[in-house]
């Protein structure tokens, strides 16, 4: 309860800070390199080079180094591709939007990030192997303790389909998105609610948002549950429960010239009890920080 109270305090603090910030509109969106508008039917390519890390909350899991961050998007009149999300926008007006989409669920990224299968993200999904060789995997797993991402049974990548609704105001946005596994991997879903606040001062663009995520019991059980497939210790068995995570995200960019900009990003996501109760999860939060130079082609 104390952790939840702390999270609520952070969210309230963010909202108060936002409300007191000065607001500068970008007079000419075309000249605002890091704004949220893109030309129809054209690709947006960008790459950020810098130093950063995303912590991994899993036992034995590698932190994810952030050296190169791509930004790839294409927007047609209704269809779009935006950093791995492929979708179709059914409603788009100045103050409301609604779209449906598919994307790869990123939960799997925390499991053995440096393994080759994590680079070729779809390989396990296509093969449909869970585990690839059940008997062998089980033999290996049963003989090894303590439990880490290295010795649990493989988790597969999943593909989610989703629907998202946005409500826009001058400098704020609320959106709610529902995701459901359509790959038959974890047979569940998750729900996200986001509040964004964006503003600009000359040469600088800022974005802060808070996100509340509900993850279904089946999602948590599949990725963070511990069964006899994962361990031979009954003490470590864990049946996943639905959970709520709360995150704070901040981004600042400073225009250098038409193509280059400084990019600074930081975020913290507090994990709910459903995740932190799992013996695989050893950290109660995920932190991300990145500082670098971004080039837009």
């Amino acid at each position: 309860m104390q952790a939840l109270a702390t999270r609520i305090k952070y969210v309230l603090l963010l909202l108060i800070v936002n409300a007191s910030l000065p607001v500068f509109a970008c007079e000419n969106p075309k000249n605002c390199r890091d704004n949220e508008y893109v030309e129809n039917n054209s690709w947006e390519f960008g790459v950020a080079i810098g130093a950063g890390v995303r912590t991994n909350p899993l036992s034995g899991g590698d932190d994810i180094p952030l050296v190169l961050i791509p930004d790839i998007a294409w927007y047609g009149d209704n269809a779009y591709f935006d950093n791995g999300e492929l979708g179709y926008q059914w409603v788009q007006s100045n103050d409301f939007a609604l779209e449906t989409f598919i994307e790869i669920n990123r939960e799997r990224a925390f499991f053995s990030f440096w393994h080759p299968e994590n680079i070729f993200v779809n390989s396990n999904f296509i093969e449909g192997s869970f585990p690839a060789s059940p008997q062998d995997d089980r033999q290996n797993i049963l003989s090894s303790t303590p439990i880490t991402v290295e010795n649990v049974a493989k988790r597969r990548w999943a593909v989610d389909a989703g629907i998202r609704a946005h409500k826009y105001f001058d400098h704020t946005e609320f959106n709610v998105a529902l995701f459901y596994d359509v790959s038959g991997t974890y047979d569940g879903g998750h729900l996200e609610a986001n509040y964004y606040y964006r503003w600009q001062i000359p040469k600088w663009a800022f974005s802060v948002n808070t996100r509340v995520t509900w993850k279904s019991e089946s999602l948590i059980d599949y990725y963070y549950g511990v069964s006899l497939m994962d361990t031979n210790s009954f003490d470590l068995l864990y049946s996943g429960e639905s959970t709520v995570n709360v995150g704070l995200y901040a981004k600042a960019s400073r225009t250098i010239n038409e193509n280059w900009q400084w990019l600074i990003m930081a975020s913290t996501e507090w994990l709910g009890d459903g995740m932190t109760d799992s013996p695989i999860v050893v950290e109660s939060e995920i932190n991300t920080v990145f500082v670098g130079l971004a080039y837009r082609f």
Partner: protein
Amino acid sequence: MGYKPQLYILILCISIVFSARTDAQQNKPMVLQTTLHGQTFSLSPTTCVTNKNDETCQMDLHIVLEDSSIKENVCIFLSGTSLGCWFSQTMPEFISVKLLRAQQLVIKEENGKTLFSQTLFIKYIEPIKKRRRINNPWSIF
């Protein structure tokens, strides 16, 4: 205290002069007339208008060399590409150009001496369509 009305009038006059100058700078002349190297050139129009972004804009340029005493041929280049060379007295009245973006028009003597240079602009009737991005740029998680 008697100086105040004069001061206000002076400030008002300065403001009017500056605002008039700003307006003049914002509106590009449709007919450009200039004198370089003792020659007077006039060029019109300097802005081509087309419907959509990425559409080629074609226009006929009216170029006049007034009171010309140039002995050499003059050549016209658009962004470095030659549109032709003529004796100054026989230069066609209209020259057709196609623009995909703002381009530089340069008139040179055959010996390479630049006589005249002007940027030709392009304007679109239909504004460039833009959409709001669904995800924040650089959003990776």
